[in-house]
């Protein structure tokens, strides 16, 4: 044997690769490269060295007579070779037969987002992710292959390092939103796998109807300790604000409307001390340029027995709205240790402290009169925010904005400044996610794993509404604090047996899982502050009231599961899964459900006839697969099947009242999924991708079956399994190395998906379900034969050029026109017509995109890299309710498009004659089709330019690699939509009222510069 030395570098830019595993084929000898990529190993000339490294294609070199072997490794762009994480294990992507998409942590890590799920937007076929608005740490709306329920959750199950965790807003329901997934540092994530079809998800049984997201955090790698520091700083601004009327325009327009209403002028100028006209742009007082920063330090390394990955992270982000902040400190420790040849133990622990602060942005109440998304659109521009003496311009008695010299004001709206200056709304998490596990090797290929995990979130919600004005103005100050403890433990025990006989390979997994989830929330409200000095709950108040959101609940899940994966020669593949789940929320006799899944695959490209044909030169990989299975939804409330009494007070005496009519026959919602797909690799995997078709039949939907209100059943409804719905669609992905020449390379990843949803059956003989926005406006409907939550409005046909009146179409199909106040006439003959009401609405179109996807390009030239990530979506309609407000003829400000109003006979315009007080013609009282717009868009979600420093320079500073980059998130958007943003979802995660834009804040654009250094 000779001593062989050498250096391993990347073929991409020649940089040295530390930690590459170098082994002698057919022996147990092996080593890894040091920090400079250098290795030394003993080998005889007849032997072959194998170089393997994650993310690179492995290379073999015959030793021969060489004493020095320098190797360049090629980046492995082929996803087909990866190992992917699946439920309770991992699997080679080559033989996977379920629909699974992987996203590497790198694609998420440096984005200026609060939670990793926001970073997945546009990157996964079949998964539509929407940012509901620009408020920080708002949970994105995630739909895996469409909306999967009507009343229950349509958000996927989130699993971190094998442990299911709690997701969804954890704030106590104040103004501050709080997504617990924001407690996970995106920089800690190695990969995210999204399981979409029944074959992949059936192992999660009753929790998998909306798909499963498996998050894997970074684990230690064998080799010298590697220290990495990542940082970025950025600035955030509102994006696409409206152009509102200025003071002069406002007075002209509103006085014209007053004149048309038979009134004298109502709006008069106010002047500043220097004699200039008061001209307030309320946006200036509400929005800001927010500054954000992020720092992450990680240490990663290990030896053959012990591997570790530690990280600490800190981020502090200011939103585009004043007083909207998010900060997070995280610590993560992932350790695994091999005790002996049989037992490996380990632990993954992350602790996060995250802090959300937000004023009332309107995110949690679309029609809130204090919502900052709304106030700049309503408040008069000819009124100053402050009086001449510096005090707030407020009307103390009415607790609303001062009128200035105007005779009319917009009713109960607040001056936003006192709440911005003096109130405080926060939601803070102490979040521990931890698991410990032990792998015991019982026999060759047979491993027993036991894993116990906990997901504990402690949330402190603090709300103080100042006594001066605004939310607390009417109560002389309100303080509401809540403490919420959300605890989940999960214990899994399972056996994995990997074995092969000849060309037959099989993996069997069998196991059990038990899980318990509890929530305890308690708090109180205090109002009427004893002295304005007090600014917190702990101060002195006159009145104390028990918190209305006090809450205590629990549920339990017990499961048995098994899976068999089989392949013959990696050519013919089959997989069978069965899960049996018992869930506490169902009545005795209905607690248990069985969830089977099966899939078949055929790697055509492994067949000799294929390999022998000329086609194989082009198509080197082709796999056909299909799957079928059934999964469930546990989204039903914890005690939904029971008839319950709740307690309160009558004066000071305790009470019990009948409060819930249960249904002991309540069953699981079921989702039966069919998936057909093919995976391909072309030109030696230079181009890879997948094509999928899916059909998802959802049955036994739990719906509130309406009861005659006179029956007096609480909530006038009883939950019943009555509905059904179907989702269908196609998914295409394409990953290509488009160009590679003289140091220049261009990689592109493209995905596009389609989805169509149809409601098939509903409760009470298919009675429509009308969904509300903010409890006031109904512009969505669930109706059999249409997609869930379709837009539902009264048709309008522009403005009658003769008289400037809006033309509406009533339920009978007749055109009627409206003259404020209260005069409805037929367009045809001018005779009196019945007024238009909600019953004249019709289904206008789907609110859910019918196609969506992304195009990610990475260009590299020598040390420079350029990333261009486009996201697109379309085919849907948006009900732009904000526009109704922007054109409302009460004393609200208007969008400058109001200047195109009808003024004289013959004017062709879409804006009717202005009449003061008119809240009907432009859709404020009943939603109209004038305010429905197409939602198609292409968004430059992320564009980044990076520079990787040359080796030579760095070595002197003992730095192994360094990259500097600048990026813009949300650089621009191409859309015909006239609202702030076509992605806005005022009703956030609602299944039945999507696609509504009502007084929400716009989206933000963020510029960042960042640096990533490894030592």
């Amino acid at each position, binding site marked *: 044997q000779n001593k062989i030395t050498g250096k391993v570098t990347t073929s991409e830019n020649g940089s040295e690769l530390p930690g590459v595993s170098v082994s002698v084929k057919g022996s147990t000898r092996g080593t890894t490269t040091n920090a400079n990529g250098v290795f030394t190993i003993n080998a005889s000339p007849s032997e072959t060295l194998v170089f393997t490294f994650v993310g690179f294609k492995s290379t073999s070199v015959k030793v021969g007579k060489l004493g020095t072997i320098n190797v360049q490794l090629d980046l492995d762009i082929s996803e087909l070779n990866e190992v992917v994480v699946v439920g309770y294990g991992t699997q080679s992507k080559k033989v996977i037969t379920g629909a699974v998409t992987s996203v590497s942590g790198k694609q998420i890590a440096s984005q200026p987002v609060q939670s990793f799920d926001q970073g997945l937007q546009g990157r996964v076929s079949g998964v539509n992710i929407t940012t509901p608005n620009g408020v920080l740490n708002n949970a994105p709306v995630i739909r895996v292959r469409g909306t999967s329920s009507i009343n229950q959750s349509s958000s996927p199950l989130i699993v971190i390092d094998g442990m299911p965790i709690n997701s969804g807003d954890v704030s106590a329901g104040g103004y501050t939103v709080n997504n617990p997934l924001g407690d996970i540092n995106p920089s800690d994530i190695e990969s995210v796998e999204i399981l979409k079809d029944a074959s992949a998800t059936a192992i999660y049984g009753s929790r998998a109807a909306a798909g499963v997201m498996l998050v894997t955090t970074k684990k230690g790698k064998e080799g010298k300790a590697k220290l990495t520091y990542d940082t970025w700083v950025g600035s955030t601004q509102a994006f696409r604000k409206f152009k509102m009327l200025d003071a002069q325009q406002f007075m002209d327009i509103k006085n014209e409307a007053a004149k048309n209403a038979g009134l004298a002028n109502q709006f008069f100028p106010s002047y500043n001390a220097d004699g200039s006209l008061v001209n307030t742009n309320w946006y200036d007082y509400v929005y800001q340029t927010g500054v954000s920063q992020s720092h992450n330090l990680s240490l990663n390394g290990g030896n053959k027995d012990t591997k570790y990955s530690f990280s600490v992270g800190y981020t502090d982000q200011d939103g585009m709205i004043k007083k909207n902040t998010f900060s997070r400190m995280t610590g993560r420790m992932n350790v695994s240790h091999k005790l002996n040849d049989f037992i490996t133990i380990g632990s993954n622990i992350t602790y996060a402290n995250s802090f959300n602060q937000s004023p009332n942005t309107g995110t949690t109440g679309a029609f809130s009169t204090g919502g900052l998304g709304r106030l700049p659109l309503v408040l008069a521009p000819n009124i100053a925010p402050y009086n001449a003496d510096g005090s707030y311009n407020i009307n103390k008695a*009415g607790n609303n904005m001062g009128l200035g010299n105007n005779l009319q004001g917009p009713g109960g709206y607040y001056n936003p400044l006192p709440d911005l200056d003096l109130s405080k709304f926060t939601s803070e998490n102490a979040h521990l996610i931890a698991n410990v596990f032990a792998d015991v090797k019982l026999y060759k290929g047979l491993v027993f794993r036991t894993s116990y995990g906990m997901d504990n979130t402690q949330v402190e919600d603090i709300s103080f509404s100042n006594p001066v004005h605004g939310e607390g103005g009417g109560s002389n100050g309100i303080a509401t604090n809540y403490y919420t403890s959300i605890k989940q433990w999960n214990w899994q025990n399972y056996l994995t047996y990997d074995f092969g006989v000849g060309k037959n390979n099989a993996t069997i997994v069998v196991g059990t899982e038990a899980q318990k989830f509890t929530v305890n929330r308690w708090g109180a409200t205090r109002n009427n502050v004893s002295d304005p000095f007090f600014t917190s709950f702990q101060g002195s108040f006159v009145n104390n009231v028990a918190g209305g959101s006090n809450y205590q609940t629990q549920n339990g899940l017990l499961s048995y599961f098994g899976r068999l994966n089989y392949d013959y020669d990696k050519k013919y593949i089959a997989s069978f899964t069965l899960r049996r789940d018992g869930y506490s929320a169902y009545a005795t006799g209905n607690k248990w459900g069985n969830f089977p899944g099966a899939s078949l695959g055929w790697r055509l490209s492994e067949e000799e006839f294929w390999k022998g044909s000329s086609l194989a030169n082009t198509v080197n990989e082709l796999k056909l697969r299909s799957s079928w299975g059934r999964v469930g939804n546990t989204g039903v409330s914890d005690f939904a099947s029971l008839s*319950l009494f709740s307690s309160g007070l009558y004066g000071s005496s305790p009470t019990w009242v009948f409060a819930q009519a249960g249904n002991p026959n309540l069953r699981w919602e079921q989702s039966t999924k069919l998936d057909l797909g093919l995976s391909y690799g072309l030109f030696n995997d230079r181009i890879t991708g997948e094509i999928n078709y899916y059909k998802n039949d959802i049955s036994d939907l739990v719906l509130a079956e309406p009861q005659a209100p006179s*029956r007096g059943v609480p909530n006038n409804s009883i939950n019943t399994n009555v509905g059904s719905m179907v989702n269908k669609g196609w998914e295409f992905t394409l990953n290509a190395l488009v160009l590679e020449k003289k140091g220049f390379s261009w990689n592109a990843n493209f995905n596009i998906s389609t989805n169509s949803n149809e409601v098939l059956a509903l409760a009470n003989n298919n009675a429509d379900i009308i969904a509300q926005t903010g409890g006031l406006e109904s512009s969505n409907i669930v109706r059999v034969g249409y997609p869930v939550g379709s837009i539902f409005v009264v048709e309008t046909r522009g403005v009658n050029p003769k008289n400037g009146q809006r033309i509406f179409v009533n339920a009978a199909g007749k055109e009627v026109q409206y003259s404020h106040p209260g005069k409805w006439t037929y367009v045809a003959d001018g005779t009196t017509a019945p007024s238009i009401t909600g019953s004249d609405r019709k289904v206008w179109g789907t609110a859910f995109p019918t196609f969506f996807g992304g195009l990610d390009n990475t260009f590299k030239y020598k040390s420079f890299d350029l990333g261009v990530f486009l996201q697109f979506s379309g085919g849907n309609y948006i009900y732009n309710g904000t526009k109704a407000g922007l054109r409302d003829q009460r004393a609200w400000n208007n969008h400058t498009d109001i200047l195109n109003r009808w003024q004289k006979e013959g004017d062709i315009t879409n804006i009717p004659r202005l009449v003061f007080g008119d809240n009907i013609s432009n859709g404020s009282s009943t939603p109209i089709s004038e305010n429905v717009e197409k939602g198609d868009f292409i968004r430059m979600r992320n564009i980044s330019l990076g520079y990787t420093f040359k080796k030579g320079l760095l070595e002197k500073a003992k730095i192994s690699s360094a990259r500097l980059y600048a990026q813009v998130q949300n650089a621009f958007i191409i859309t015909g939509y006239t609202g702030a943003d076509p992605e806005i979802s005022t009703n956030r995660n609602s299944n039945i009222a999507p696609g509504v834009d009502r007084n929400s804040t716009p989206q933000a654009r963020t510029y960042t510069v960042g640096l990533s250094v490894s030592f």
Partner: protein
Amino acid sequence: EKELLEVAPITSLSDLDAFATPDRVLAQVNGLYSSTKNGQLYGGRYYVYNDVRGEEFLNVTSNGVTALQTWNHTNNSSSNEPTNMWNAAYLAINRANLFAEGLDKNAGVVDATLATQYKAEARFLRALIYYALVNTYAQPYTKDNGASLGVPLRLIGEVGSGNNNLKRSTVAEVYTQILADLNYAEQNLPSTYSTALLNTTRAHKNSAIAMKVRVNLTIGKWADVVTESNKIVSTSAPFKASTGVANALQASVASVFAAPYTTVESIFSFPMGDNDLPGTQNGLASYYLPLIGIGDFSLNPAGILASSAFSTTDARRVNFVRNDFASDLGRFRLTKYPTGPVHKDFVPVLRYAEVLLNLAEAKARLGGASVDASALALLNAVRGRSTAAYTAADFANGTALVNAILTERRIEFLGEGFRSIDLQRNNLPLPAKANIAAIPVTSPAYIWPIPQSEINVNKDCVPNP
């Protein structure tokens, strides 16, 4: 498995355990009261609706969720206000029905006498609610002797699915049921309770009698008004109840509307407490008071304030009307319910003053053209404690006396939820106010629509025109 899957709620009680102990049964009784005083019903809004449909109040805030559409008569069958009140009313009725049935099924948890008393309380409350329903969603009894469509009479407890269809009983049938419930209540309620608070906030015999007086007045059965009143009104001044709780007028009307709200004048009231409030935008003080309430409605200067019968020195004007609130543009405000920003004023349901004026009216009407002396004495008992009493010479005839009593009701019960019922039982239009036109008795807006949510599911329920 059991520990994980047999999880019981911690803060709610299974229906199976609701009758387990005497304390729980009592808590259910209190639950029936609290259901009846839901903010959409007797806890606040029902009163506001009855008052603002009349002419005494002007809308200030134009807020669409605080009785604006009720004030300007634009509610339709899908509007929130008719829908929410209907829902609250029938929820309370169902709870009362279920409770009465549960008592029978769980006989022995409380002794038979107490069980009967509890049932009587449930039926008293059910009568109170049906009275509110039939006066809101149906034509007045006096229009056609109750031949019009009333509301569905739900008299048995409802739990599972089904049984949605039930036709509307006639107005007369509803009143028959109300009186039957009140007769049962009168027989089985206790004469008194142990404390003044309970005597005001739980129904006793006099409460049932006082309610029967009101019901008979509403349907124009003057003789029955007299018969029932005589059980609790002495034949001559000072008028007082001689049996049961010693209900009588207070010397000062202001004392009735001040803490602790438990004088013997308050025959029955709904209590409020720091932890039992009417709810946001439900409290009476929230509607009428600026600064410490939202102040949605001010008093109409052209309403009863303009009446010569309502003198500026009248104790009821001095105590309950103000126009000097800061930044309120000199609006007249009703300050009968003064507490805020947390609105803890008790809601008066039956006051002794009402019994007296009800009796006065019945006697005056029975008196025909002549001026009935005992009616005048009863009127003066109420009027005289607050302002100068009338003399017989003030009235040309019996009709003038009846009109004076009706006017006195507007003064005495301002903001107590009487106005639209008083107009409707006399088959009078709802008067014009500010820029709102009068609603004639023939208008569909004269009564509220049956909620669309009822029509959708209850196929036997006929909508109002």
